[in-house]
């Protein structure tokens, strides 16, 4: 007797979900596309928001920056829940390892006095800045139009909590497991002269109505602050006996590189939009002018505080 082994292909009735088929045709698509394209409701809203009568619950007019098709922007990192969580879990694991190493050898506490002062009174207080940026970004997550955009804001907002947490852990390690540095950092954030321009700026950004303007204003600060504070002090830290700071700062530098990916792609999408490109470019320029100058002012004050502690870095 003889068996003949044959396989039979059963063609699936459809390769993917309707939201993807509508745009890309019936072909297998990535999880990211399946969970992103046209997911946010667009019609049949029963109620208008009572607090802004001429808008829908989800409405593109919450910002001056418009996209003809909200999904012409897609996250270049293709983050949906699982890849985002996996990626960030790994990043914080890495950070945890760095910190465990530093704690075991008390490297943070053993840094030269001026570097300890710098971390305690300039770097750690920025956890409150991160917290402000979180509020602003989560506002973007609510009012952005289109899942692809809203998704990026949601994750960026969570990232801010993560960054604040990393800074807090550095503060706790610096104070040998006590909350002393954190308490001092809070009062520095509220009172120290070198942080007031930044605090004022963040609080003013919080009440900007246009969600995109607010997110970009925070980004204007980030673009100056992150390179200056983290990548910029790396060499000085290594040469100044504060290698611990360099080990910590690398994690913020790599987060910022990741943050840039979606923001650059988004700015690009706004500027190359088939219908709204010109209007968007004008708005972007105006945002850059308004907030860029303010950000520069706030970061300059911090820069002066850095130079006062560890000598001129420029």
């Amino acid at each position, binding site marked *: 007797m003889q068996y003949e082994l044959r396989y039979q292909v059963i063609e699936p009735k459809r390769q993917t979900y309707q939201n993807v088929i509508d745009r890309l045709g019936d072909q*297998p698509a990535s*999880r990211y596309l399946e969970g992103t394209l046209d997911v946010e409701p667009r019609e049949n809203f029963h109620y208008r928001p009572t607090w802004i009568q001429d808008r829908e619950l989800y409405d593109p007019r919450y910002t001056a920056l418009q996209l003809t098709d909200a999904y012409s922007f897609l996250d270049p990192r*293709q983050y949906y829940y699982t*890849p985002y969580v996996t990626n960030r879990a790994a990043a914080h694991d890495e950070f945890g390892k760095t910190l465990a190493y530093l704690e075991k050898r008390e490297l943070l506490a053993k840094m030269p006095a001026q570097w300890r002062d710098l971390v305690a009174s300039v770097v750690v207080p920025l956890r409150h800045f991160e917290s402000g940026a979180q509020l602003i970004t989560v506002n973007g997550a609510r009012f952005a139009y289109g899942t692809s955009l809203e998704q990026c804001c949601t994750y960026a907002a969570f990232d801010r909590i993560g960054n604040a947490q990393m800074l807090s852990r550095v503060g706790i390690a610096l104070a040998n497991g006590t909350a002393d540095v954190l308490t001092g950092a809070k009062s520095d954030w509220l009172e120290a002269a070198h942080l007031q321009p930044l605090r004022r700026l963040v609080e003013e950004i919080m009440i900007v109505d246009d969600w995109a303007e607010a997110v970009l204003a925070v980004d204007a600060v980030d673009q100056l602050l992150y390179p200056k504070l983290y990548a910029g002090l790396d060499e000085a830290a290594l040469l100044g006996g504060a290698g611990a700071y360099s080990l910590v700062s690398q994690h913020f530098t790599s987060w910022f590189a990741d943050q840039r990916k979606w923001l650059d792609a988004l700015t690009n999408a706004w500027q190359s939009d088939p219908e709204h490109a010109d209007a968007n470019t004008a708005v972007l320029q105006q945002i850059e002018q308004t907030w860029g100058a303010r950000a520069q002012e706030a970061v300059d004050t911090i820069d002066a505080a850095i130079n006062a502690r560890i000598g001129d870095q420029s």
Partner: protein
Amino acid sequence: MSVPTTRRQVGIDLQESEENRPLIEAIRQDNPELTIRHLPGLVKLQSAGQIVINRETVEEHLGREWDTGEFQLAIVSYAGNFSEWDDDQIIVKWEH
């Protein structure tokens, strides 16, 4: 020996999975003459002469950094020689 008049086919068989779909899409983009056959659990890619895989294209489709070494995880079988396998590019072709 006579000079072959047609270029011989090279081929790569990849596992069909969610992970490999962007990779296949990238190979399709870089090799316009590619023929793709779907078998259960397997995707057979064939092209005359050579198949090129560029790291940059794969990363674009994948949305993350990709090491050419990761190609090992996707491949089931192949026909041809790996004439190049460096950090940026993999080329499969017959070299004689």
